[in-house]
């Protein structure tokens, strides 16, 4: 079955979700309403879940967000196109490189700007390194939610640290890279940088193997994640969920293949697909994607051409695209990250809109959590992979 064929429209509320135990039974006492967050150790920032519990079991869960709202879109409409670039770093602060690229992609479409070949390769290298950063962080935090005493998180952070050091030596900043420009990249990596990156990528599978050996086969880990937080393909598609969360439900939808933006069409990589759509599948998607990212990176380092990194026609000052609109999207580590821009010919965009994958993936949190315990809700939230900077904008 192709999950994209429009089936009979199922109204979302009445869709058969996880069964919820009836609570009218006289043996069940009162329900307990717990407000988890915005100050809570495992809500990944300032996120709030109003959970209604029957014992330990969730009967209702209301996600509340907006505590980190920073007016991103309105600020961008009052800044120049270039001026919004550093703000996109702060959207998803774990993967600034791919967020930069998504924005640059939208602006380049708007202005009809060409990008030189070397810059395209560099962008792919940065985006895949970012994917490694994001996914290794995610699995670390997921295990923290599962109750380890920081050990897997710190192993993941150790590897992330090495990649972030590379980013720092290239772009000047560890997390807020601000590296992409309309029509290319800002800094050309030196051969030493490339050698260091190559070495890191060569060593990365070793870390992944160790990581998987430590926890993937762990009985407690299997019992805690398998069958928890199921999300079926129809639901996921209807809600617009993208990224590893969607692929864990078995839907083959990866923008690197579908859109083949940048030079991804020239790379040989596979898209892993889950079958159950539970937390374990979502975790494994990340691990398998990291392995594929390593493959992409190896190819990119091998083929990286010489040449300019900026299109000579690209303008830095006084950048005014002609009136029109454009949507640029890419497969971010968290899902489809899109920027929609309308230009009226002025230096500022008339309308600037972000399609944040974190926010849209979060919309089905309640459906995934109902019927599970409060401990599972934390794990399911962790497996969706949200960054509050992007959810609230």
């Amino acid at each position, binding site marked *: 079955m192709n999950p994209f064929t429009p089936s009979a429209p199922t109204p979302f509320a009445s869709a058969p979700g996880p069964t919820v135990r009836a609570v009218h039974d006289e043996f069940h006492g009162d329900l307990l309403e717990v407000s988890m967050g915005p100050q809570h150790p495992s809500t990944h920032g300032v996120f709030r879940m109003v959970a209604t519990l029957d014992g330990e079991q969730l009967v209702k869960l209301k996600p509340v967000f907006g505590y980190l709202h920073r007016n991103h879109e309105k600020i961008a409409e009052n*800044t*120049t196109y*270039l*001026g*919004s*670039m*550093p*703000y996109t*770093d*702060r959207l998803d602060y774990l993967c600034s490189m791919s967020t930069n690229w998504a924005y640059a992609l939208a602006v380049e479409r708007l202005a009809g700007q060409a990008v030189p070949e070397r810059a395209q390769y560099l962008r792919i290298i940065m985006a895949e390194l970012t994917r490694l950063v994001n996914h290794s962080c995610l699995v670390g935090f997921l295990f923290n939610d599962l109750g380890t005493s920081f*050990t897997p998180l710190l*192993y993941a952070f*150790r590897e992330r*640290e*090495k990649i972030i050091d590379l980013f*720092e*030596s*290239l*772009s*000047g*900043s560890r997390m*807020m890279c*601000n590296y992409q420009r309309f029509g290319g990249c*800002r*800094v050309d990596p030196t051969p030493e940088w490339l050698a260091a990156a190559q070495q890191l990528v060569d*060593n990365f599978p070793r870390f992944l193997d*160790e990581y998987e*050996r*430590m*926890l993937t*086969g*762990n*009985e*407690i*880990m*299997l019992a805690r994640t398998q069958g928890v937080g199921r999300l079926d393909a129809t639901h996921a598609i209807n809600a617009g969920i993208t990224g590893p969360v969607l692929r864990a439900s078995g839907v083959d939808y990866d923008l690197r293949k579908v859109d083949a933006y940048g030079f991804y069409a020239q790379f040989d990589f596979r898209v892993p697909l889950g079958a159950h759509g539970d937390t374990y599948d979502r975790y494994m998607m990340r691990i398998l994607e990291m392995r594929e990212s390593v493959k992409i990176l190896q190819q990119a380092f091998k083929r990286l051409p010489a040449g300019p990194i900026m299109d000579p026609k690209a303008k*830095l*000052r006084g950048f005014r695209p002609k009136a029109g609109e454009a949507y640029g999207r890419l497969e971010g580590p968290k899902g489809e990250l899109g920027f929609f821009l309308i230009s009226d010919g002025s230096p500022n965009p008339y309308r600037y809109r972000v399609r944040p994958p974190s926010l849209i993936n979060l919309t089905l949190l309640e459906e995934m959590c109902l019927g599970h315990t409060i401990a599972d809700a934390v794990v399911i939230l962790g497996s969706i992979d949200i960054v509050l900077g992007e959810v609230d904008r």
Partner: protein
Amino acid sequence: MLGSGIINGLIVTAKNFAGSYHDPERMVTVEYPEQKTVLPENYRNFPFLITENATDPMGTLRCVACQICEKECPPQCIIIEKSKDKKPDATGKLQLYPAIFGIDTSVCMSCQICVEVCPFDAIKMDKVFEIATTDRFQDLFLDRERLAKPNSYYHEIHPVEAAEVDGRLLAERKAAEEKAKVAAAAKAAAAAAKPVVTPPPATP
């Protein structure tokens, strides 16, 4: 068998325990105040203004108060007020200079856009990161005097970039001088030719 996954995990952590004593790949900690990492050349923190001459920093600012950075700065943390008079810059050309140039580092997000848009290479990124202060208003607002740092300092912190900038500026200056020479020669020639004949206004 039940328990094998747990034993595998225990083996991995034991390996890491041993590795933390001898494997620098695993033990990446740097004990900060005593040991310091070498900052990469491209590292950026907050902007500073370049002066040509360390003995007279305010007189030889490269900045000509064009206010492009003020306009482009995304968080709008730069404040510039143009001077009323003009002062000769390093090349001897009369230029405006910033009467007030301030950067509010509590607002600045270190994005480097001011550096990229500056047509005069007058503002660059600093590498100093130990900048904690006790007063969040006075001490975090950097004025002209505290922003100005000599070009030699720029060479010290960003050697490759600074050499490239200096080379470009030198070339530009040379070109400007030659252009001025040519213009002067043309002017002189025109002046010499003037009394003899008055050409009619040239038609384009």
